[in-house]
């Protein structure tokens, strides 16, 4: 057993767990935070996406012990205009992938603001406008079996535009 303390959604939480427990299982089974979902449990679907110190990760491929002392944000700790944008744009149908989509999109928007390139960005240029192509590439780690991608892309684009207005005003 290993003692682990993780700050989850702003609150320090301690655990005594076997080292093989994934971060996802620790969040869901030990802390009762069932927002992050177990889809594939092998890093392929993105339903388990959470933010670790603001960066999006697949919590299913993380061992909880590796995140001792770190700050984890799950959908339960998110209060952002992106959530209402998802509702407004029908960015979901069954909703199973939505917590992961939203955490991933928040991480993505932060990466984008930092000037991080994507595979569709020219390597010697800063990422320009957050086009649909950029969003689809940057969000390719989140699958949606209902196929709500068009609404997801719109919701993210709308929210990114809000951010730009705030910065310029």
């Amino acid at each position: 057993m290993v003692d682990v303390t993780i700050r989850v959604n702003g609150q320090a939480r301690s655990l005594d767990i076997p080292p093989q427990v994934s971060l996802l299982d620790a969040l869901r089974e030990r802390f009762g935070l069932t927002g992050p979902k177990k889809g594939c449990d092998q890093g392929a679907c993105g339903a388990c996406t959470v933010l670790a110190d603001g960066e999006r990760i697949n919590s299913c491929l993380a061992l909880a012990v590796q995140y001792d002392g770190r700050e984890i944000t799950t959908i339960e700790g998110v209060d952002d205009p992106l959530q209402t944008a998802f509702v407004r744009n029908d960015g979901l149908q069954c909703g199973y992938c939505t917590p992961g989509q939203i955490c991933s999109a928040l991480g993505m928007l932060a990466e984008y603001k930092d000037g991080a390139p994507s595979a569709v960005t020219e390597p010697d240029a800063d990422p320009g406008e957050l086009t649909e192509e950029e969003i689809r590439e940057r969000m390719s780690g989140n699958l949606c079996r209902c196929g709500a991608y068009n609404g997801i892309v719109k919701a993210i684009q709308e929210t990114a535009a809000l951010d730009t207005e705030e910065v310029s005003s």
Partner: protein
Amino acid sequence: MKSFAYVSARDVPTAVSAIAGSPNAKFLGGGTNLVDLMRGNIEQPDTIVDITRLPLTGVDLLPDGGVRIGALVRNSHLAAHPLIRSRYPVLSQAILLGASAQLRNMATVGGNLLQRTRCLYFYDTAAACNKRAPGSGCDAIGGFNRNHAILGVSDNCLATHPSDMCVALAMLDATVEVESTRGVRRIPMNEFHVLPGDTPHVETSLAADELVTAVELPSVAVAANSRYRKVRDRASYAFALVSVAAALEVTGTTVTQVRLALGGVSAKPWRATKAEEVLLGAPATEESFRQAAAAELAAATARPGNEFKIGLAERTIVAVLRELVTKGDAA
């Protein structure tokens, strides 16, 4: 997942001491491949030495103009680093064309080097696989081998190395620095991964007790005109059928510098030295590009399932070189 003893190392000496004398211990970096393999009981270490917190996270310019990359640098951080984007665009592109953003935020440079094949038979514990269970056979040979290797294959294994990053590193002649209780060793990138031969379970020249501590990129002026192209079954988030890392300098109409490496075609990132030999000093024309590609692929051995990769690799080499001629002209 089998239970294991857990050691968290805060510095390199602690990490290498913890693994010395424990043949069934493993270092754990980002976990994106190892945790998955442990969950499938394909890897069953007795001890995990967690190296997540080692201070190997620098990306630093070297006095000779090269760049030293700490083994724990996250893939996403490396791809976004200004030194990499400006001097080695091929490396930034290769990383960004691999995996997903979440995985790139977790995965480390050292772990990317040591990731294992995604051959379906390697993952299927009910299948024969000489890599997973030496001597058990290879179900890929008569099975579904569309994704498998065509260069450097053996009768024992058709697996490919799945990395994109490593293809760029092979093209750039990177050096891998490793450390154990016996000292520090430097391994040329093109000798780091090994071909399957009769021992497909041996994938690298790294000893079991050695820790990858850094990757060093030499100063490569021609890398400023470099490109990585990946051909795959989906537009994003899929492994390469074929990929090409290339750098090219044309003076007048003659190729004066060229570097080429291929991914998705072998158990190691494949440095295309035969193609480079044909190209160097040749006119920078489609005809030379085609001849060079054919020279490299002449040694390919394909199965019906992956025969298409030979032509695909040839055409991708030509396309990337053509693109670099245009790009070099514009610069």
